[in-house]
């Protein structure tokens, strides 16, 4: 299987082209958001039939006007606040429910716990598009229509199964001797969990906090269904629903909002990618 230098060079070129092409495909919309967010309107709304006007570059000086409009004349800051507020409470609820459940499945239940854990994971697959109709009944019954409380109630339906699964895998990687030796030293099981296991599980807990938060920020369907007042919307719904106006062009501010929300999430995801993959591969790789 010796290869000539020409073949090697060809393989390198092919490899580079594949990487380049897919990277370009992945980031093009973000590049487009970036350039749109800082372009003057007269540079933005030229019309694509004018081939002399290159839309990929700044034909006029960049401007901060769209950012200023976004933060001063729209409810974007309110939506950001709403999103983080809902996210914080959902994270707390998720931790309260998922940490004990995950520990129990990892340590205190035998064979049936393993089956149950797969069952819990499968509930993550029940899609929001199947549940939003019964939830709309439930939300109406509880008088939570158009309240952020509706989202706080419902978002754990997808964060709890996913985070329980992730954390269970994490607890299983901790050696059992850790809490056993603490219990020999006179700790109760509870004391051992609080004093020994949880501090060791901090990286796992942090992962869960991050994922519960990002899943909440990304959620669209429930938020769209249950929140109708503009000032109570979350970012993922407020921007596409309340910033898009039929005949008034807001594309500069819109794209700025998309970019500002997306980039921090991308950075966070990148840090926690490996754990995230481990959560999905369901033991299919060792």
């Amino acid at each position, binding site marked *: *299987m010796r290869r000539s230098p020409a073949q090697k060079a060809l393989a390198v070129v092919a490899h580079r082209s*594949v*990487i380049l092409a*897919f*990277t370009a*495909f*992945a980031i093009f*919309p973000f590049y*487009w958001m970036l350039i*749109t967010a800082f372009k003057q309107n007269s540079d933005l709304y030229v019309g*694509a*039939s004018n*081939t002399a006007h290159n839309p*990929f570059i700044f034909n006029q000086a960049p401007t901060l006007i769209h950012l200023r409009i976004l933060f001063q004349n729209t409810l974007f800051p309110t939506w950001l606040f709403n999103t983080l507020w809902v996210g914080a409470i959902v994270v707390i609820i998720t931790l*309260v*429910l*998922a940490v*004990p459940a995950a520990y*129990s*499945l990892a*340590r*205190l*239940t035998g064979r049936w716990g393993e089956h149950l854990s797969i069952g819990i994971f*499968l*509930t993550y*697959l029940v*899609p*929001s*598009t*199947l549940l*939003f109709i019964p939830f*709309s*009944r*439930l939300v109406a019954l509880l008088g939570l229509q158009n309240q952020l409380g509706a989202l706080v109630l419902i978002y*754990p339906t997808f964060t709890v*199964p996913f985070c329980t699964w992730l954390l269970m895998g994490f607890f299983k990687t901790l050696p059992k001797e850790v809490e056993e030796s603490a219990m020999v030293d006179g700790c109760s*099981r509870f004391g051992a969990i609080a004093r020994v296991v949880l501090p060791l599980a901090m990286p796992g807990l942090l992962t869960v906090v991050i994922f519960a938060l990002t899943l909440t920020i*990304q959620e*669209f*369907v429930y938020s769209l*269904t249950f929140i109708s007042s503009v000032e109570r919307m979350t*970012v*993922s719904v407020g*921007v596409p629903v309340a910033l*898009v106006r039929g005949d008034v062009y807001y594309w500069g501010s*819109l794209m700025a909002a*998309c970019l500002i*929300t*997306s980039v921090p999430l*991308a*950075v*966070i*995801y*990148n840090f926690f*990618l490996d754990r995230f993959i481990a959560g*999905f*591969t*369901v*033991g*299919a790789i060792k």
Partner: protein
Amino acid sequence: MDTVPALTTPAPLKAADTLSARDRRLGKLLLAPALVYIFLLVALPFLLALFLSLTNSSAGSLDFSFVGLQNFKNVVTNPVFLRALRNTFVFTFVSQVLVMVFGNTLARALLKNFRGKLLVRFLILMPWAAPISLATLGWLWIFDSTFSVINWMLKVVGWLGPGQWYYWLGDPTLGMVAIITVHVWRLLPFSTVILLAGLTSIPAEVHEAADIDGAGPFAKAFQITIPMMMPILTVAILFGTVFTFTDMNVVYLLTRGGPYNSTHVLASLAYQEGVLGGDVGRGASIAIFLLPLLVVMAILMLRTSRRAEVS
């Protein structure tokens, strides 16, 4: 004396046998809150969805009566529904084929070491990390009827002559093309990183051994890579299929199912009928059509996880 200990070696204990009754009780106690929550807010609403599909309930009131299978009968004879059903399958199938082909290509390319790999990984991951509604909004602007940059490029290279124009979101076929493009763009990072994890888990020695035995690239692909990748490939396909089949974000934000309800998928149609139209029973019955495929996917996933456990 040497042979005696072998006879008294205890059988290996299973995890369940070593648990004390107290631990078991604590185990149930710790599990209870999560299980109660999942039962109340996933299992019961799920059953309620089935029940509502058999009623004529509407968004305005809590009164309803039982109408049996009437909703389903109305739905399956409706051309808009049949179109949405077909679209859902086309959308899922085409996106998944493209995602798998591209994902495998990209994962293999990322397996090699090269300068700037971490940066490339970050950039390629962005479409998956961005909130789907906001990312789709970016595409909405790219597909804009007047300012579409795609049309500008097609004009520049001469594909679109004078007077020719693509209305990406105003045409049933181009609309589906746009919807599939956005979905492939969105799911590709997810499948790529999962496939990459699978490829990385194949030990290098396996390939080296095959090289020594004189295996060609085809033999290696079909006898090593593909069989060893099967579990992970299944996982990527199952999740990808579920995420695509049940998605309404892309359709809702790009075309709203238009023009003339030609680009709806089941999920977006259920939303239009059940929430916007207020016909809860009808919306629920449309959403129920998502169920058979989901059940199949869940069973396949259980079998995959069990096989992984055994091996």
